[in-house]
């Protein structure tokens, strides 16, 4: 086990957070790997339920422990958490024990009846995932019909009087131009917009090259966040953009293993929701409980010890971006102490152009055979030089190509 450096008693909050907390502030818990959708960029490569999934009783024991540790709320996700038959029971179980629940869903089970139930609860937040402000852009990555499902869920919540739902958007190359439209969509449903960063994690690794925002779009996103950031949630997602200059609201720090972590459907504890890989596996909570993993894992001890800037140490922006996102570097095969692949100072592109090996995934719950929900990532276009339908010459003129014999030609 790595020995922890002497913890200073003074210093900024961010410095204190780097040394870790007694319990996470923000804990993500993926309840199931089962999902009705097959989003192209799924962080957890979800699709099929894992047969080792925690039972209802095991989930209740986790909630009891979170209550003891005073983890004031959990972000529940998946997979699609609402397709677990005990989802609604676990939600009530948690809220009754002062563990607030914010859950992410594609909306498939948010019926008018469930929406009324949610409106009657206190201490529950609902986050509907939408990755395009139009069906065309959304369904391209989330699959056919998924935009309509999400909008129906938002309408059901609004009709039931549920206040302030969240619309959660992963920013991609295709939707950066829709930021104002997302804001309008949120306003239409009395919801709050939440923007997060596309990570090359899970199936995201397969589509990252095609979907991650281009360098000029990073700037566009930063400017938009600077103008609207106070009313938009980001989950502290874009701290790599801080190197453009002024920091965005939030902690601007990688919280992996320090203030955040992930519990997966089988009870494995990972450093962060974007790092489901054995390299970032701290332990399993079925052995000695979650608290033991959080407080004694050697991986977490290492993440909480002072980090060096590595190749970034000499960059004048290192203090703002702290080298960016660990998961983004890992899954693109870049060294963890070097620049983020989307480093806004351009060092990421240089690093990506060098020698690198993208790590093989250590788990995959994708459906083995595609279903009708699978997104079809093809865009139908036409060749630009063609401005009319192809026709044979004689369709435009019955005498095309025919020249009268000289003998018949009039003098």
């Amino acid at each position: 086990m790595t020995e922890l450096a002497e913890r200073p008693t003074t210093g900024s909050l961010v410095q204190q957070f780097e040394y870790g907390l007694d319990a996470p502030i923000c804990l993500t818990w993926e309840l199931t790997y089962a999902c009705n959708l097959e989003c192209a960029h799924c962080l957890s490569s979800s699709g099929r339920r894992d047969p080792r999934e925690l039972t209802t009783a095991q989930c209740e024991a986790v909630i009891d422990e979170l209550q003891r540790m005073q983890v004031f709320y959990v972000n529940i996700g998946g997979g699609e958490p609402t397709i677990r038959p005990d989802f609604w029971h676990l939600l009530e179980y948690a809220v009754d024990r002062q563990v607030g629940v914010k859950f992410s869903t594609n909306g498939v089970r948010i019926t008018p009846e469930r929406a009324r139930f949610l409106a009657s609860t206190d201490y529950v937040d609902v986050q509907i995932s939408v990755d395009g402000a139009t069906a065309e852009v959304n369904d391209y990555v989330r699959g056919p019909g998924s935009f309509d499902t999400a909008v129906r869920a938002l309408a059901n919540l609004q009709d039931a009087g549920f206040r302030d739902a969240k619309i959660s958007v992963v920013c991609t190359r295709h939707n950066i131009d829709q930021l104002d439209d997302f804001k309008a969509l949120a306003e239409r449903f009395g919801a709050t917009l939440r923007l997060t960063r596309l990570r090359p994690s899970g199936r995201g690794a397969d589509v990252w090259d095609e979907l991650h925002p281009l360098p000029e779009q990073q700037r566009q996103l930063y400017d938009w966040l600077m103008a609207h950031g106070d009313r938009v949630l980001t989950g502290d997602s874009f701290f790599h953009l801080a190197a453009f200059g002024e920091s965005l609201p939030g902690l601007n720090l990688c919280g992996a293993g320090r203030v955040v972590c992930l519990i997966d459907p089988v009870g494995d504890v990972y450093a962060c929701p974007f790092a489901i890989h054995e390299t970032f596996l701290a332990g399993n909570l079925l052995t000695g409980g979650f608290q033991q993993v959080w407080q004694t894992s050697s991986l977490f001890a290492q993440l909480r010890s002072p980090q060096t800037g590595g190749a970034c140490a000499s960059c004048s922006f290192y203090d703002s971006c702290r080298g960016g996102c660990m998961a983004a570097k890992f899954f693109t095969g870049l060294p963890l102490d070097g620049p983020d692949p989307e480093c806004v100072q351009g060092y990421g592109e240089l690093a990506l152009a060098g020698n690198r090996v993208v790590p093989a995934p250590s788990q995959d719950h994708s459906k083995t055979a595609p279903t009708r929900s699978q997104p079809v990532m093809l865009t139908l276009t036409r060749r630009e030089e063609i401005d009319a339908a192809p026709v044979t010459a004689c369709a435009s003129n019955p005498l095309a190509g025919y020249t009268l014999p000289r003998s018949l030609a009039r003098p």
Partner: protein
Amino acid sequence: MLEEAWTLSPSVALRPEPFGALAYHFGNRKLTFLKRRELVALVRGLDEHIDVRAALTATGIPEDQHDAYAVALRGLADADMIRPRTATTEDAR
């Protein structure tokens, strides 16, 4: 403020941390960090003393720092982490 009676809000929970404590408000969902252990002890003790000054003295905070602590408490009051102790809250005790 120093001559007033205050208390921790009923919807606030304090979670001890190495640097002090984390205060969470279940009503407005605000998270605040109390960065000094003395401040944590003071906030916890507000309820047991006739006014803020008595709580400060009991926590062992030197008099020349009382005003600075009053500023910190004012910040906590703005987020409804602490509330003035009224006759009603007195009755409820």
